[in-house]
């Protein structure tokens, strides 16, 4: 009996941290979603009321979706890399939940960046896809996200999958600069500067405001989705562990009988 009790306490203390997180998520989520919606309303309003570019016409409005999505795709990987550090170095129980929950969101933002980039490319470059350095590195990033998701799905033990994918995330993270650098090298080698640089430092303030608001809106969207996904992941794990407990209890009753 004593053993059962100490077991219960240990399990409880293990769950304390995620439990606190669930409480926090419960309180934060409505505010976050509200703020996200508000920012999107303002941002989209600004997007469609500002003037179009005299060269690109209305298509420039794709930028307000495309650029924030591309930023987010990188920020999401950074969040995953930080979570991976949290898993490996501090062994924080929530870090692995965070990394796992962030991967599909990051993949979605990356896909959004790719699709909008491609849609933008058609009127600008006359083709759906250009092997431009930026597009290519984002595409590689997308492949890395998919690989991580595939790995996570292939492993059934979340604890083990956490450490292993954390290692892979970090290896990918130190690789991203190398990939970016090599893709740029490759690009200058094969494509004489025919591709126009759209988002240089000289951006008109006319475009800057909607862009910033949209970037903020996307970031809030990311945090909202991330917290919600983490909450779902914790719930999913609890359900799994309850099911296991049920199976074991059944087994013990069977043994007694």
């Amino acid at each position, binding site marked *: 009996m004593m053993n059962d009790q100490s077991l219960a306490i240990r399990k409880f203390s293990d769950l304390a941290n995620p439990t606190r997180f669930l409480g926090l998520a419960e309180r934060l989520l409505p505010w976050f979603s509200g703020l996200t919606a508000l920012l999107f309303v303002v941002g989209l309003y600004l997007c469609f009321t500002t003037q179009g570019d005299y060269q690109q016409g209305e298509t420039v409005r794709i930028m307000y979706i495309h650029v924030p999505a591309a930023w987010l795709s990188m920020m999401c990987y950074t969040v995953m890399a930080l979570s991976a550090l949290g898993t490996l170095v501090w062994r924080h129980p929530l870090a692995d939940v965070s990394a796992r929950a962030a991967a599909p969101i990051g993949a979605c933002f990356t896909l959004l960046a790719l699709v909008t980039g491609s849609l933008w490319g058609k009127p600008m470059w006359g083709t759906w896809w250009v092997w431009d350095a930026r597009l290519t590195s984002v595409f590689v990033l997308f492949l890395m996200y998919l690989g991580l998701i595939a790995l996570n799905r292939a492993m059934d033990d979340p604890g083990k999958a956490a450490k292993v994918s954390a*290692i892979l995330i970090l290896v990918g993270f130190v690789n991203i600069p190398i990939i970016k650098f090599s893709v740029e090298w*490759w690009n200058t080698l094969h494509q004489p500067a025919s591709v126009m640089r759209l988002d240089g430092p000289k951006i008109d303030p006319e475009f800057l405001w909607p862009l910033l608001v949209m970037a903020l809106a996307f970031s809030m969207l990311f945090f909202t989705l991330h917290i919600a996904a983490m909450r779902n992941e914790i719930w999913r794990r609890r359900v799994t562990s309850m099911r296991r407990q049920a199976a074991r209890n059944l087994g013990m009753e069977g043994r007694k009988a």
Partner: protein
Amino acid sequence: MIALFLRDLKLSVRAGGGALIGVLFFMTVVAVIPFGVGPDLNLLSRIGPAILWIGALLACLLGLDRLFQAEREDGSLDVMLMQETPLVLSVLVKCLAHWTASGLPLVIASPLLGLFMNMNEVAIGATMLTLLVGTPAITFIGAVGAAVAVALPRGGLLVSILVLPLAIPVLIFGVSAAYAAVEDPAPFLPPFLILIAITLFFAVIGPLAAAAALRSSSD
């Protein structure tokens, strides 16, 4: 450590000729390309270095998933994990043995395939040299993938999916250096030196990450 190197070499020669299959795969892939792009010798000699590199990249990944899986299945990995010799060192030696058994034959076979692709002597030499320097990097990155997927029964495809994006820099600089040797304006040395740097970088990162992954996937 030499014992481990020799054992892995022996195994790769004996275990169904794993090393030979890699070379065969390499030759087959390269031999199939002309059927796809047509027998235009000028075109083939132009894309030759790239074809050889892509073929070598794929052939290097072949069999990498078994690098640690075989050790895990028969329990040898447990014993290796327990030793005083750092696991990183064992992983490094295993990678070197794997490269010697499956990467080096590719390098040696590449001149012959270069002839098939109608490449000139300089291009063949440059491709061989870049393969010699670049393929170890693929093995080292692949070791991370192999270690990560060690517990998965069908990890082979997954290893390729995980490793190929990370191997893109190796491919880029390998092919760039090979082309730079043939095409006049581009200098050969910068991409070649970067390729060496990448290989050395992965020689450190790869075994470290692979050892960490192996430790955490023991059960």
